[in-house]
């Protein structure tokens, strides 16, 4: 009897998996055909898309790659269709590969089409992609630290906004960017501490606690911005971090510009990504964190201090998000503007989910979202047919699709959102 139930369940999941494979494969093929029609067949054969790899001031000038737009997109679209057929017939189990290939091909087709008759500095685009992905990455790491221990964090936005504000003011007052950074990070820790006390000590619904923090951060920064910064403009000028080229590595063409000629915060963020991954999967603390996030009672029975793990993780999470917020001010513009995070905290949340609560996966998602972000800026200059607002929707739409389990499947920590009561 139990065996029968088990087989029928197995059948059901197998059926569903197969159906999903057909749907996804079919959609890829259809999208590929559409891409072929719009971006290859419809394009005059003599149009060229030029990709540049060096900026005007670079020491080493790389040759400009001139591609015939139509022919290139023919090849790319056929590759996409072929990939869809392969998924239909054989099925790909690794959803990261599936996603990566589809996203890459589609973006390449779209980009080649958008710059027909013009040229684009691809290195510059990649560099701005990385820079724009850093706040998403840091926010996502914050979400991961928090949620892996079982506490939902929708307050990333509020933490970032607060840190952006604090770091600018402290930077302007002290004139030292590192002190400003530390102050920003501490403000994030403080706010996260409030979230921790509310959700762990008082067992407040974690989404309400997060919402409170977001409303509070928006209100307070708007309030102080109007009260202090608009009348004292000198307070709203922290200066920005200078680029730190890494010796030798920064001189590599293309790769050096993208990766090794950035401000220190970019390196710090990338190191933190490895650190969080190491912490979660290779240390005793990480094992305990994951245990507490999945089954706190079992962890407690084995002598793990659930409250301590959660407190520390939430506060560390606040510091990571704050770093992302400080990056927006100290790392790029050096001044605070009303509501300057502009939903980045929620895109970070999306990147976390997209990356399945996993540091490297979230970095991939952050890069994708960062690419979308810098692409829409570039396309505004190129006057593309597709409005920038529609491109900017991509992260949010993609997250909903992933969550619905249409492509791939993500799984949040099991004990998330449930306050732990010690028996």
């Amino acid at each position, binding site marked *: 009897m139990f065996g029968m139930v088990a087989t029928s369940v197995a059948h059901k999941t197998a059926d569903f998996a197969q159906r999903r494979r057909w749907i996804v494969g079919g959609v890829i093929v259809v999208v590929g055909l559409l891409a072929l029609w719009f971006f290859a067949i419809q394009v005059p054969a003599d149009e060229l898309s030029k990709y540049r790899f060096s900026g005007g001031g670079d020491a080493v000038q790389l040759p400009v790659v001139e591609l015939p737009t139509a022919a290139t997109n023919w090849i790319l679209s056929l590759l996409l269709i072929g990939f869809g057929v392969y998924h239909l017939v054989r099925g790909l189990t690794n959803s990261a590969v599936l996603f990566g290939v589809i996203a890459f091909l589609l973006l390449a087709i779209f980009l080649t089409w958008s710059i027909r008759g013009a040229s684009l500095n691809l290195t510059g685009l990649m560099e701005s992609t990385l820079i724009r992905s850093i706040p998403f990455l840091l926010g996502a790491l914050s979400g991961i630290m928090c949620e892996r221990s079982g506490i939902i964090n929708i307050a990333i936005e509020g933490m970032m906004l607060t840190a952006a504000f604090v770091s600018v003011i402290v930077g302007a007052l002290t004139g030292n960017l590192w002190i400003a950074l530390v102050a920003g990070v501490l403000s994030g820790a403080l706010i996260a501490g409030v979230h921790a006390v509310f959700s762990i000590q008082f067992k407040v619904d974690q989404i309400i*606690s997060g919402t*409170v923090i977001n409303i509070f951060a928006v*209100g307070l920064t708007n309030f102080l911005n109007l009260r202090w910064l608009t009348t004292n403009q000198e307070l709203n000028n922290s200066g920005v971090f200078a680029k730190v080229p890494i010796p030798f590595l920064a001189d590599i063409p293309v790769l050096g510009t993208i990766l090794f000629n950035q401000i220190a915060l970019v390196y710090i963020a990338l190191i933190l990504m490895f650190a969080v991954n190491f912490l979660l999967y290779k240390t005793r603390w990480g094992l305990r964190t994951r245990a507490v996030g999945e089954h706190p009672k079992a962890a407690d029975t084995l002598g793990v201090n659930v409250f301590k793990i959660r407190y520390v993780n939430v506060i560390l999470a606040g510091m990571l998000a704050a770093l992302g917020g400080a990056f927006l001010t100290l790392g790029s513009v050096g001044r605070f503007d009303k509501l300057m995070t502009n939903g980045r905290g929620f895109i970070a949340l999306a990147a976390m989910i997209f990356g399945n609560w996993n540091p490297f996966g979230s970095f991939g998602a952050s890069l994708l979202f960062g690419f979308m972000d810098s692409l829409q800026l570039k396309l505004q200059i190129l006057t593309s047919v597709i409005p920038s607002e529609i491109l900017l929707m991509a992260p*949010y739409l993609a997250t909903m699709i992933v969550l619905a389990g249409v492509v791939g499947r993500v799984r949040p920590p099991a004990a998330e959102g449930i306050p732990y009561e010690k028996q």
Partner: protein
Amino acid sequence: MAEAAATANPKNSSAPAPNSFNLRRLLDAITIPALSILTAFLLSGFVIAFTSPEVLALLPQFWQHPVELLTTMLKTVLTAYAALLQGAFGDWGAILQGFQVWLTTGNSTELLRALRDPFESLVAATPYIYTGLAVAVGFKGGLFNIGVEGQLFAGAIASAWVGFNIEGLPWFLHLPLALIAGILAGAVWAGIAGVLKATRGVNEVINTIMLNYIMFLFTDWLLSDGGPMRGNAGAPRTPEIYPSAYLPRVLPDPVRFHWGFFLAIGAVFFVYWLLWKTTVGFEIRTVGASPTAAKYAGIAVGKVFVLAMGLSGGLAGLAGANELLGLNHYMVAAFSPGYGFDAIALALLGKSNPFGVLAAALLFGALRNGATRMQSLATVPVDIISVMQALIIAFIAAPEIVRWLYRLKRPAQHEQEVFARGWGA
């Protein structure tokens, strides 16, 4: 677990039946919200005082002139709150005088000008009533609708479209049509999250957040240069709607009070009736209390999720339609100061009860309207209201803090509602 505790402790079983009227229960229900509001006011007062340039200038000389500093602080806060109250409830001396002038000379200009402020509080309260109800309905069905702001935008867009595209209809057709368009747009937008929860088990919180941002960007696109709903004016806004779709004003200019307020009161009674007097309402509340129990009682839980979400979104859409048809008559991207987000505070403050939400909405409307006056008279930025609201939610969500601050006893039974159940479930 809870049953075991109840039998072990006979005192618990003497708790009054949930539906019988009891003055103590009513007092208990009001104590925490009232103290939360009071505490939020006090703390915001500190924020106003300690961020004031005059106070900050005196701060270094605290030891030389402590009294002067304290009086400056007190003066700053009292000036601000006095302006807030006057903005919220009007200048009654001026109203009486205007009344006298009107009675003796028949000239109502002065009276109307004096009446503008108090009625403006009701105008501000109207969208709060709808959005507060929207969140409350969600809570009752065990759903956390953070997407009210996006649904409000959807409603405004739809009613604007109906408002400026259809010409020549009589008002008794055009106005209802525009309102229904708003309701439907909000319901559909929220319904997406409901359907995804019902069919794919995706938590509505994350989806409504995502839907919010999609809707904001969509609005930006509609109103952008060359966008499909951009009017002829140089600014990013839609064309003006035809007067046949206006929600009529109750009093002449400059009082902007319109019939949307009474419609909102109607919505309060409708939601009360629906939730407590109909089978659908019973199903929504049962699912909200426990989806598992509801499932075993034979309720189609998925259907209820979609229904509750649609209802919540419809109310949110109505809020958008109300603002558009009653006040601006055209849509701009920044037409809402965050009514949908403040609504969470309203629903918590009103304990998800329609009449509680109404009371909370009247309070918030008065605060929001008064704060505008405070900004112009006392140069205290209006955003202090958001700080206050955040504090109010915080205290209501964590009543232990308030009980500890005011040395109150714990309540007999532990009545804490669970609003959300994690991302996955």
